[in-house]
């Protein structure tokens, strides 16, 4: 009996080493190089979610302008491409966090998919103006991230601030200017030729000269 118990105890102790191990154990390496502070990190995470939400809203615009009853393939193309760009913005911000040693945990909660808020627009101008409003909101939000990363008393995150200012704000301002230009041109065309104006503008967006 005693020997049996001893054998059982021996097995119990050694069982883990007998189990199949399917992965390599994590290792520890120094962490002083990981310097991002929490407020900055959290605002970056929120920004990623915002880019994802924008990507979905643009898909909804693309879907709307693809409908047979709307029939504006040029607008649809513009908005589907904008949706893919927003997804790329999210990926760029994720890449940045990875470069700074982040995202070793809490990765799954980074992105939540919610159906886009709005799904119809009365016309092309309204959609362009909505897109412009969305972009200004994103710009404002990036400025909030910059504040969070710069105003930290213990750690001014110069590099991330520079990255956001140089790459992201630059793209935002250019994108806004482009949308504003398109909205203005279209609105002027609509002044006296409401249906024809949008038709022609749509084909221009498709790359067809009518």
């Amino acid at each position: 009996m005693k020997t049996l118990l001893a054998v059982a105890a021996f097995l119990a102790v050694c069982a883990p080493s007998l189990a199949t191990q399917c992965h390599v154990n994590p290792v520890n390496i120094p962490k002083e190089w990981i310097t991002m502070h929490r407020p900055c990190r959290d605002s970056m995470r929120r920004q990623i979610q915002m880019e994802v939400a924008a990507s979905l809203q643009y898909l909804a615009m693309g879907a709307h302008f693809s409908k047979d009853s709307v029939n504006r393939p040029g607008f649809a193309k513009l908005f589907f491409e904008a949706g893919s760009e927003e997804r790329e913005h999210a990926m760029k911000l994720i890449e940045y966090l990875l470069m700074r040693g982040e995202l070793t945990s809490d990765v799954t909660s980074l992105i939540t998919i919610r159906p886009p808020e709005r799904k119809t627009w009365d016309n092309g101008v309204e959609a362009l103006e909505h897109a412009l409003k969305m972009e200004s909101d994103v710009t404002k939000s990036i400025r909030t991230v910059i504040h969070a990363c710069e105003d930290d008393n213990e750690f001014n995150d110069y590099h991330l601030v520079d990255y956001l200012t140089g790459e992201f704000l630059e793209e935002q301002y250019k994108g806004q200017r482009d949308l504003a230009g398109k909205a203005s041109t279209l609105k002027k065309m609509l002044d006296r030729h409401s249906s024809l104006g949008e038709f022609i503008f749509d084909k221009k967006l498709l790359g067809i000269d009518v």
Partner: protein
Amino acid sequence: MKAIISAVMCLLAATGAFAADACYQDVSLDCGQASTSLALPRCNAVYGEYGRHGNVATEMQAYANLHLERSYEYLLSAAYFNNYQTNRAGFSKLFKKLSDQAWEKTIELIKHVTMRGDEMNFSQRSTQKPVERKNYTVELHELESLAKALDTQKELAERAFYIHREATRNSQHLHDPEIAQYLEEEFIEDQSKTIREIAGHTTDLKRFITANNGQDLSLALYLFDEYLQKTV
């Protein structure tokens, strides 16, 4: 008299047995009216029974939404494998590719839904039971994440089978060869290749884990990741 004719026309159109001349009738009736507005309700892209019978139309919307969700999940897996601790650039690349594919398919499906005269509904879910997503995490080790990816790809492929089955039921109200053909060409063929590829990866990892009492594992995972970097 006109009213009676149009009422009869509407009834006939509603039965679906009389699609011919519907838009033309709308035009003929409305263009003679004194009013300046044109409704032309039957001048649309809907034909066959798409959106009127069965669930193919809603399942197509749900299929787009499924791709959208899986696309962003794959994106997070790609991110996780690119952090400094996991540091598996090859696995990351594999998941990035799966994410890109699912994203492109999302847009294609939305376009297809609208091509058939329907609109996109981003809240639509399938009647098919989704794969359990509670406690879903992308923070998995190599073999676990491949296993999850294999299950996910099978879910996408089997959903295509399901919609295909619904679209090829022997009934004049449900049969939709256009959707069946589209699924075969744009989804079903490629899905079998992806599934085979990931299943093959799990076979390789399984061998590495069991061979040589597991002593090869750490080097094997490193080499396999290098292999993925070069081949994905």
